[in-house]
């Protein structure tokens, strides 16, 4: 077998969501939000879908949310991701707006304990957490201490 390629990495300088990655390196979870009406602009379109304002800023969020859906990836079909396997790919919704989804990875969770609506919170860790160091801090998520089932 050939040696696995390094993990795919985000563009921290010029990428479309470079501010998210720069915020993560400071230990903050930020998403673009309309200053006028508070609606989230995710994925960024640069114009508020609700009020059409162009006044959008990357706002700091609580880092809390709820599990929307997930998959246990035991085999990586995209070969550069092989070092991560097995991993839990996940979509969460953010606590500030339960219809805004964020694609991430769950860490320090057991597959059997997962359910839709499970409360989760951000954990800033290396993008290659427990697999391979990348030097890039990512907003990964894990279960919270509180139990319960949020409406998602």
């Amino acid at each position, binding site marked *: 077998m050939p040696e696995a390629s390094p993990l795919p990495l985000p563009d921290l300088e010029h990428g479309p969501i470079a501010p998210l990655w720069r915020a993560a390196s400071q230990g903050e979870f930020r998403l673009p939000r309309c200053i006028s009406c508070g609606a989230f602009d995710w994925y960024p379109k640069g114009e508020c879908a609700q009020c059409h304002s162009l006044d959008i800023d990357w706002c700091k969020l609580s880092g809390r949310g709820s599990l929307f*859906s997930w998959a246990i990836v035991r085999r990586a079909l995209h070969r550069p991701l092989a070092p991560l396997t097995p991993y839990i790919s996940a979509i969460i919704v953010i606590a500030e707006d339960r219809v805004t989804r964020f694609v991430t990875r769950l860490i320090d969770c057991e597959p059997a304990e997962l359910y839709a609506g499970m409360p989760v919170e951000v954990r800033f860790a290396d993008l290659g957490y427990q697999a391979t160091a990348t030097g890039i801090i990512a907003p990964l998520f894990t279960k919270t201490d509180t139990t319960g089932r949020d409406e998602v």
Partner: protein
Amino acid sequence: MAFKADPGPARLEDIRGKVAIVGIGEAAHSAASGRSPDDMAFQAIDAALRDAGLKPEQVDGLMVTGSTAGQLTADRFRAHYGLDHEIWTSGKGGAFSWAATAPHEAYAAIATGQASVILNVFAINWASQQAADAGGPATAHLAEEMKANAEVVFGFIPQPVYFAHVARRHFELYGTRPEQLGAIAVNSRRHANGHPGAVMREKVLTLEQYSAREPFIDPLRIEDCCLISDGAGAYIMTSAERAGDFPKPPVIVEGVGYGGAIEGMHFAMEPEFASTPHRFSAPGAFAMAGLSPADVDVLAVYDPFTIVALMAIEDLGFCPKGDAGQFVEGDRLAFDRGRSNGGLPFNTHGGMLSHSYLLGINHVVELVRQLRGEAANQVRNAEVAVYGGYSGVDAGTLIMRRG
């Protein structure tokens, strides 16, 4: 697919009864073979021309999937057959949802006198490309900038990962179970076992075998995912007024519908995450045809994953939303149960799950065979057939009737 459809249902001109499909053909389908798309396309075209009793010089229209690399051009068609006549062309054909909507596009050319015999063809060598690490279905998704920065880096790639999330969401919302996805995989395999030309013709799959497999992208098993193939398919369209001039019984297009996903390629952001754009494309097609799902004798659906097939059955209106898990259990989808016995003959060639990954073009070829009464897994008295085409970002519905 580097392609953006307008969100929601499209308004299409009524073409009920205007277009006939008078010829069909396929290349041999296989795993990685080293064959070029053009070689396979011409094999399928030769078969379709023979089937329709036509000569290459009589073809004056060519439709392909413009957004898929390597598809046939009018220049290469002329060069291959040593011709120099004018050929109307359109990139809004080939496979995916456009294997459903091509007759609508074709009719515009027929009605305005731009073409009279229109060939719709699709060829793919993704099996060879993937074996050579040179491409395949994930290529367009990896290249999309937002996905590269917000999804790929977390491990949310390629399509089996997307649709594992969709399946999980369907399970959580509606109580759907893995064995119900398995029922679709097993039924498709049984149909392939009885179908000459199916890549999985010799490989049996039971529900027990399915359940014993460990999910590799949980909740999906390998058997929930389509094949990756080399192959080609083609069908020939003309005005329904001329339908009687060809050797085979004609198939008449009764309805066409089309609709786009709300968020395009960003599947993770799609508001109705456990649904498909079939919900936008189907109502218009059934309205145009003056038919309802209850009138359909045989259904073929673009089936990249069992979960997509399951959602399509709901979203096309064959059962209430959320009920397809129960609906597909047992032999409900078998070709030999039939509507009068409460069945819904489904992907009678084995679909992309077990016949070949031809992106839907040979779903239409199979339905034409069903309506002619010449299918391998023949549905008794099949008069009305529906193809549910899909590409992830859009869906097309094609309703056909025996002429």
